[in-house]
């Protein structure tokens, strides 16, 4: 019983010490100074490539907002039915519209030989498709542009930031096409690929 006051005193001293320690945690701090680097925020560029039908100027992004690849229907010239032994032409303009801060050159290429479909009519077998890289849309309708090109050629071209390039296509209908295929239709799909160079 006589030790109770001593215990109380000891408790008070301990509490005082603890409070003292807790109250002055920063008392051992020395001089210090801080500065911000203010380096800001780095932002990545987008990777936007546009495809434009050379005849209608219809434009679409190569990659749609949902991340899927876009498809663009090209208008041929001359318009109308294709006559055996003759050719029609189309072109697509590829635009490098990235917002990259530095140099950003892309290489656009015809990804594979054209895929021809005719729903079983057989017309596709009489079609020959050639693709060439061109300097301008106006060249696409020039037969001489395709003279040295082979149907198996997969042309490519470099396109600098803010610039455009053109792929021209020639579709020829074999003069030996059977008459019973007259009036039939065929679809031609040409995959394009673009990669950072």
């Amino acid at each position, binding site marked *: 019983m006589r030790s109770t006051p001593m215990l109380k005193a000891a408790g008070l001293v301990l509490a005082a010490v603890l409070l003292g320690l807790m109250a002055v945690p920063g008392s051992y701090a020395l001089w210090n*100074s801080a500065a911000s680097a203010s380096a800001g925020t780095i932002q990545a560029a987008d990777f936007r490539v546009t495809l434009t039908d050379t005849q209608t100027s219809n434009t679409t992004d190569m990659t749609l907002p949902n991340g899927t690849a876009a498809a663009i229907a090209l208008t041929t010239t001359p318009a109308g039915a294709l006559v055996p032994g003759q050719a029609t032409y189309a072109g697509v303009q590829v635009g490098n519209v990235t917002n990259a801060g*530095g140099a950003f050159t892309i290489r656009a290429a015809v990804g594979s030989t054209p895929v021809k479909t005719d729903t079983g009519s057989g017309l596709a077998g009489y079609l020959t498709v050639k693709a060439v890289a061109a300097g301008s849309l106006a060249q696409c309708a020039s037969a001489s542009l395709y003279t040295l090109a082979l149907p198996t050629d997969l042309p490519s071209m470099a396109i600098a930031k803010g610039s455009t390039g053109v792929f021209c296509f020639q579709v020829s209908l074999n003069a030996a096409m059977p008459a019973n295929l007259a009036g039939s239709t065929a679809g031609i799909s040409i995959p394009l690929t673009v990669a950072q160079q």
Partner: protein
Amino acid sequence: MNKMVKGAIATGVGVILLVGGGGTLATWNQAQQANMGSVVSGDLNLAATNGKWTNAAGTVIPDITAYHVVPGDVLTYTQDVTVTLTGDLMQAKLAVTGAGQDGTGATAFGGAATLSPTTLTKGTQILPDTILTPADSGVVKASTTFTFNTSTTGRTATNATYNLGGIGYALVQQAPASANNS
């Protein structure tokens, strides 16, 4: 009684006169100045100048917020940090604080980018444990490199962001051996 009163008054006056002439009781004395001078404190300061971003081509980027990186980009941030240390027993450590913060979700670089640790150099590299003295006062070169990896494929990390606003520097005094921890 009058005589006694007069006597008492005369005695009191005499005592008062004795008290009033207390100074006349002084003995030899001498005073000296301690000449301790003035105690002057030192200084510890850290000041960062405006940093500069350059790309791999060495082109200065005037506004990093208007610049968009692409795979293969290597950006370097360099900055002069002026260290001031004054004091006979002054010792301090200079360290980089904070870290870059990658974006989240669709705005994250993920593994497509690498942020190198900021280096501090003044002749030789200053490490976090390097003890600086007043002789080390002056301009320290800070450098941080951001690399957008060339191994990035597809459209990975397009429009991603990486915030480096949290990076800073801290100059912290180190207690002299004789410090009393007061």
